[in-house]
């Protein structure tokens, strides 16, 4: 191990010397390009989870960077189990220059020393001038910037235009329940609305919209609050209006087969609905009747984070800036149909003309940031178990949440 490190650092030194000599040799003809202090040469490794059309559109931007700066090589490495890989590499004191993932891992990775702050190379002013506030917050942990936001995502109502018209879409949660109940009565074997009712992420709109919460940055668990209870009661009221065994896959299949008028799902699902030939539209989640506030889904932010063991952080940050700038993001989302975190790109008329972006973009405005505190990992499991116990009728909402509160508090205590 030590020998390997020793060898690689001396190889690195040799490379730096070599590049220095090359730079000196070229220097005479390249005097004008001194406006920036970034030395644009070297190799940057990016670990990512991009797939399909997403990958092609993103790769094109990195290729453009390499074309502009031929001394830079960008290695895009697809990691199937990225979160595990990053954790394992950090344990060995290794890792890529850039990790492209969702912001909810930031708190954990900071504590595991897998990513490092980049305030030296990018100012807070730059961040707020480029990206939407929710995205800047998502990339900030304990006051420091750990990444540059790329795209945001949240769940919203996607409806089948053949089964429901836009003016029929319920505007309040009470209306949504009664619509779903009457729909399944008048259309046996079909459903008014479906989603995964046993997962914490998918219930966030109702819980946060009712004034409840899962966990705060200081570790306070909010499962026994009246808002969280109201959210749980709302979910439980769909028993009988959704299939008893419904989960993510079943909800998805029902919508694709035209057996559900509406689904609550995220941008990642849309390509499959296009493929399945569903004529779909978007609507924002309804207003929570008791609270009078719109339902607030979690807003996840895909973020390029700076790896803790990057040996060339200035170059890595320069690539992030290039990748997330207005022009590149505008071009990218025309293909990927993601909602850009770059607010200048989002405001572009070409981008606003894309229905998917306008649809999800409207929903994101009502959302709350997906918590990036490591305490959130103490919550997913107890909440899921409590939802299952309520959904299957094994426990009342009060009993389920009281058990989940103590289980989550026990978990949080382990993380403190």
């Amino acid at each position, binding site marked *: 191990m030590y020998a390997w490190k020793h060898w690689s650092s001396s190889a690195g030194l040799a490379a730096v010397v070599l590049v220095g000599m090359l730079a000196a040799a070229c220097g005479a003809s390249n005097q004008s390009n001194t406006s920036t202090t970034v030395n644009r040469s070297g190799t940057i490794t990016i670990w990512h989870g991009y797939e399909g059309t997403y990958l092609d559109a993103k790769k094109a931007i990195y290729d453009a960077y390499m074309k502009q700066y031929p001394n830079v090589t960008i290695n895009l490495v697809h990691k199937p189990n990225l979160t595990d890989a990053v*954790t394992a590499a*950090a*344990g060995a*004191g290794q890792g890529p220059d850039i990790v492209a993932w969702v912001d909810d891992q930031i708190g*954990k990775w900071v*504590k*595991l*020393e897998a990513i490092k702050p980049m305030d030296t190379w990018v100012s807070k002013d730059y961040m707020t001038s480029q990206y939407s506030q929710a995205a800047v917050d998502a990339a900030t942990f304990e006051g420091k910037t750990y990444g540059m936001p790329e795209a945001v995502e949240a769940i919203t109502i996607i409806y089948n235009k053949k089964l429901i018209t836009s003016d029929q879409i319920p505007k309040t949660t009470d209306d949504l329940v009664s619509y779903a109940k009457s729909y399944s009565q008048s259309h046996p074997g079909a459903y008014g609305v479906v989603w995964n009712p046993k997962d914490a992420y998918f219930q966030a709109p109702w819980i946060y919209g009712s004034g409840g919460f899962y966990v705060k940055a200081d570790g306070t668990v909010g499962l026994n609050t009246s808002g969280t209870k109201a959210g749980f009661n709302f979910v439980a009221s769909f028993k009988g209006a959704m*299939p*008893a*065994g419904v989960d993510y*896959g*079943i909800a998805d*299949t029902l919508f694709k087969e035209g057996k559900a008028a509406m689904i609550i799902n995220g941008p990642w699902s849309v390509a499959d609905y296009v493929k399945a030939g569903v004529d779909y539209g978007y609507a924002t989640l309804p207003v929570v009747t008791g609270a009078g506030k719109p339902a607030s889904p979690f807003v996840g932010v895909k973020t390029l984070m700076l790896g803790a063991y990057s040996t060339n952080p200035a170059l890595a940050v320069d690539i992030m800036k290039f990748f997330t700038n207005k022009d590149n993001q505008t071009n990218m989302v025309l293909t990927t149909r993601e909602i850009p975190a770059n607010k200048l790109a989002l405001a572009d008329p070409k981008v606003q003309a894309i229905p998917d972006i306008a649809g999800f973009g409207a929903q994101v405005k009502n959302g709350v940031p997906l918590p990036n505190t*490591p305490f959130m*990992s*103490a919550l*997913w*499991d*107890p*909440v*899921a*178990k*409590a939802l*299952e*116990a309520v959904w*299957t009728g*094994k*426990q009342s909402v009060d*009993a*389920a949440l009281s*058990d*989940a509160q*103590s*289980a*989550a508090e026990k*978990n949080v205590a*382990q*993380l403190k």
Partner: protein
Amino acid sequence: MYRVRALTTVTYLAPMIIGVGLISLYPILYNIFISVTNQNLYHFRHYSFIGLTNYQSLLKTLDADFFIVLARTFAFVAICIPLFLALGMLNALALNHPAIRFKAFWRVALIVPWAVPSYITALVWKFFFNGEFGTFNQLYRVVAGPQAGLPWLSDPNWAFGSIVLANLWMSYPFFMVVILGALQSIPTELYEAAAVDGASAWRRFWAITIPLLRPALLPATVLSAILTFNTLNTAYLITTGGPFVSAAKPGATEFVMVYAFREAFQLFNFGYIAAFAVVIFMMLFGVTLGSLRFSGLVREEAR
């Protein structure tokens, strides 16, 4: 007499010693080392020695929940292994029968369940078991009427049985292959001689086949019992350990590894989970030694 220099001996043994050291010994020792440190989310790179603290807190949290999980896991192993053996034996005997044609085809077809990655198999079974749309209940409805349905995954006992079924499908081919190999190594003269002496097929099976299979079956059984005890994929992917009746109680298919994964891995308590692993390791080691000795005694008596 040859005289072998120590250096020569060591040189010949070196590849194996290095292999065993790197693959088996080092991870075990590293795990034991981590179990006496405070490595966790906040001390990931810079952890320190804390003695037996993890073991103490482990003993403190070894409450009723853990023993329910442990008892359920042993029950799971005790139910699975005889089923693996029986089904594996049945298939191997059938494949070994001279009347069976296209043996190569059947052998490949029957090994497929074992060769398919377990997470794919688990997801397929998850669909089979689904209450509304699953294959099993759709078939059941043909017989029992449109409103009927069996609680494959929603009832705790049924869910336990469903996981046994999925696990059986994934694991019996291993026994089939082991038994088939062993069967083919039994000389046919033994059967012929026994037949000449007037032994029935039933008698030949118990007096020749079973005793000669034992040396192959014993290690396979122990190995498979350990793997079954350590089941994570099958249970986690099909039921995530559920069905759950409360966030404060383990689910009906929450076996030891699922429990460990939930309790400690999601919370990055590496030192604690390493201590947990050491305890489980010692437990399995004890049970394995015990069962080997027990079966050895049984064999001694049979002679």
